[in-house]
């Protein structure tokens, strides 16, 4: 066997340092299996992503099988039972998937020129509420119990101000917590005065009709949240991972850039590793979404 020179060894070590130590390389699969997540119309999504799938098949010289999941639990399940090699996930869901299956991110999404976004606390513009502290004893709508921008990061706004320490504290701080099931439902609950506030992603605002936008006001904003990411199954072979990452990354420039509109309309991608999501992971442990690490872990 041909020996590697020291430079190659260094490069290989550097490459390995970016991936989990428990990685088990496998042979390239006969087919790359992609799971897309659909929030509204799975049938339409199946049609919409065809151009991307065709492009990936051409670029990777590999057959692609794809399907659509309706929630992140199904995506993680698909990673675990190897029915998916690649998927698209929010930061908290990714961290949960990472802990349970060893899946890891290869690309982060860029929107409006940024690879981060924020959560915000919205109240009705008529409301007397000015600060997060004013929400003690009031009602609030979040998006989902497992949501980065629609629950965990909004909670963190209250924690940062010493108003709560845990999720249980939040139940006592607020009169009632609702999980509205979507950003639009949550912000519209503020517009319609069903709740006193909503803790949701920054872009929820633009889901409102123009005439509704003056009905809400922002009282606080979270720290930056790393954007959604493209995630691969732990066992997927490195050659395929590299090719997929390079192919999607290449969409940032050049004639195939219009493909991005089929990939959740991102502006582009940046290359990421798990370390970009360590802060999310830490918060997820603090809020009980992930197991607390034992000393020495």
């Amino acid at each position: 066997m041909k020996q590697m020179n020291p430079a190659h060894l260094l490069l290989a070590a550097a490459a390995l340092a970016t991936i989990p130590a428990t990685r088990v390389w496998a042979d390239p699969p006969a087919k790359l299996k992609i799971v897309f997540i659909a929030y509204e119309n799975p049938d339409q999504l199946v049609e919409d992503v065809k151009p991307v799938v065709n492009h990936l098949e051409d670029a990777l010289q590999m057959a692609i099988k794809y399907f659509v999941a309706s929630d992140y639990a199904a995506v993680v399940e698909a990673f675990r039972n190897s029915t998916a090699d690649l998927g698209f996930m929010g930061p908290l869901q990714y961290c949960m998937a990472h802990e349970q299956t060893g899946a890891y991110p290869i690309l982060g999404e860029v929107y409006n020129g940024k690879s981060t976004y924020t959560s915000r606390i919205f109240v009705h513009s008529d409301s007397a509420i000015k600060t997060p502290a004013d929400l003690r004893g009031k009602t609030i709508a979040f998006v989902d119990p497992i949501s980065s921008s629609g629950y965990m990061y909004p909670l963190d706004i209250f924690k940062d101000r010493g108003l709560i320490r845990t999720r249980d504290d939040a139940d006592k701080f607020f009169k009632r917590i609702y999980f509205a099931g979507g950003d639009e439902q949550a912000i519209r609950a503020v517009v319609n005065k069903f709740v006193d506030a909503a803790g949701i992603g920054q872009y929820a605002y633009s889901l409102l009709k123009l005439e509704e936008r003056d009905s809400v006001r922002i009282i606080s904003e979270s720290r930056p949240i790393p954007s959604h990411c493209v995630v691969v199954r732990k066992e997927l072979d490195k050659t395929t991972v590299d090719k997929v990452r390079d192919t999607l990354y290449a969409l940032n420039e050049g004639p195939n850039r219009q493909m991005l509109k089929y990939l959740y309309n991102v502006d582009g991608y940046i290359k990421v590793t798990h370390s970009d999501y360590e802060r999310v992971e830490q918060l997820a442990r603090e809020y009980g979404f992930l197991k607390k690490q034992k000393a020495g872990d």
Partner: protein
Amino acid sequence: MMSNKISCSRRLHLCAACLVTCIVVTVSVQAHIIPPENFHPAVESYRRMNFLLNLNPIPWHDVLKDTAVITKHAATIVPAAAKEFHDQVSRLIEPFTKAADGNREMPDTAARRQTARAVFERSTRIMARLLKSRLEAAAAAIREGGYGAECLKTARKLWAAFEYEIQHSDSAAHTRLGIAWLELSTARGSRGIMKAGEIPARVDLFTAFTGEIIGYVDANFGDHYQTPGNRRLAPLPTKSPTFDAAANVFVKLPPGHNINKQVPRPRQILNMAARGVDEGETALIAVGDMAFDSAYIFGEPMRSFQMSCNTCHNKSITNPQFFIPGLSHQKGAVDISNNFFAPHANNGLFDSLDIPDLRGIKFTAPYGRNGRFLSLREFVRNGIMNEFNGPEPDPVLVDGIVAYMNEFDFLPNPALDRDGTLNDNASAAARRGEKLFRKPFITMDRMSCATCHIPSANFIDHKRHDIGTVEGAEPFSRDRALDTPTLLGIKYTAPYFHDGRAPTLQAVVEWFNDNHCLGMKRREIDDLTAYLDTVGDGVDAYEDTSYYLDAEMEEFSFFLSAYEFLKEKDKPELMTITFETIASEIRNHKWELQDYQFLPVMNRLAELMDEAIEANKQGNRALVDQKVETYRTLFAENVDDLK
């Protein structure tokens, strides 16, 4: 692809804009585009069908299509009820679709109203049945240890069939039930991710709130639902104890409509501006420009929809994407003599027409597709009062609109000499086509195309002709003549003919060749098409940017430049219309700001106009002066940033 199809945080990424008072961000926003509402297909059809059933005439074929969509979705959930619904509404509608196809007499007015009501009631009942069924399925799933996510999501979407009317006629129930929906989505818990973060469902709460919503839906829209007589057909919750019978539930435009203007904007050429005239001293034109952009010169429903002349004739040019189901037979067309815009002027016919281009209108009299108005003034007054339900307009207002429209110029065309002949800038094919254009055809009574489209007269003859595109009232009727349209600018005004039946200029040439037996060969058709394409061309037909908030803001200042003139003429009503128009236009356009740091400036400018309206109503002219002056100062201070 997915911009109107996905939700949750992922969907949020799709929208470019954000925010607001205390947090400043820079955004990339394009134009003033209102996206369509995202309805469940059955709800979309139900709401559109409600709109259609209130029209006169009712487009029964379209109603039938929407009932088919409702049937299709109902069949997967409540198959027996779906079949019954389908059989009933098909039987009810059949006489009308047959009549529309010319296969029988159209039933009388009473039958039309009765059938519309019956179809509406049956559709409402089955939508209520669907909603109940999905909620019951979600509750059953929860009881059995599932999460009922899809059923609950579908039920919430089906609620949109009724929510608008409930919100505006039973606000107490809307709030109570809005909270009930939040309770439901919370009580269902979460299955977490592979058990991590799992939250067990609260079966008791879920059952209770499901019951509350179903109870309301059953009571108001259930199996015994009947709509109150003599009212517009709409799902009003009349059985609710908190229903407000006096509430004004305004009609909404139906799903599928599009009244957004085209982007990029067409380039408008105002003659006085092209000649370098200072716009600050053309007060009457400023009044007209304001009125052309104003919904407040019209009556309802134009005011509520914020629709103006400019909606259809964007910057004086046809808006090719304008579409309202039931009123438009295709994009870029509308029936303006119906019971929706101006009930008093309904002609009882569905006569949707291609929206005309207004470039060069001072040269194109008479007006109206059949040339029934000899003067622009008559045409404008009729449009305000009898097409769009406005009050008798002030003479100064009409003078202003006419003055403004008389400024609309054709696009310059370097291929045309002053006498309308082609010059060396035209292609060889176009010049061969020019000869054909001027060639008399025996089958056209020895007339040529140029006989009516006189090149030296801007390609019109100011006459009306029957060329065979209009279907008359009866075989030998004489109601088929149409005004000769100009050919200038037609490259940008597809489709063609009064009803837009020809999608391209080539289709127009082929239509003449076939219907007037001109005997032209393929190459001649191509040459004549090339000629029309060249004559209809122009320099810079569209603006070269999609960002034009700065231009809009300058235009609003131009509107306000008429203030002193209106004050001098003692026209407080026109002053109010001016202030209302500016305020609403600023509020409509402010989301186009590329830097939301300046939203407060936009808000203040709009408020100043509100305050001017109030002062004007009180007759406090000094205060109006002050508000106008403050507006001008604030705008001048921020003009470079309001873009």
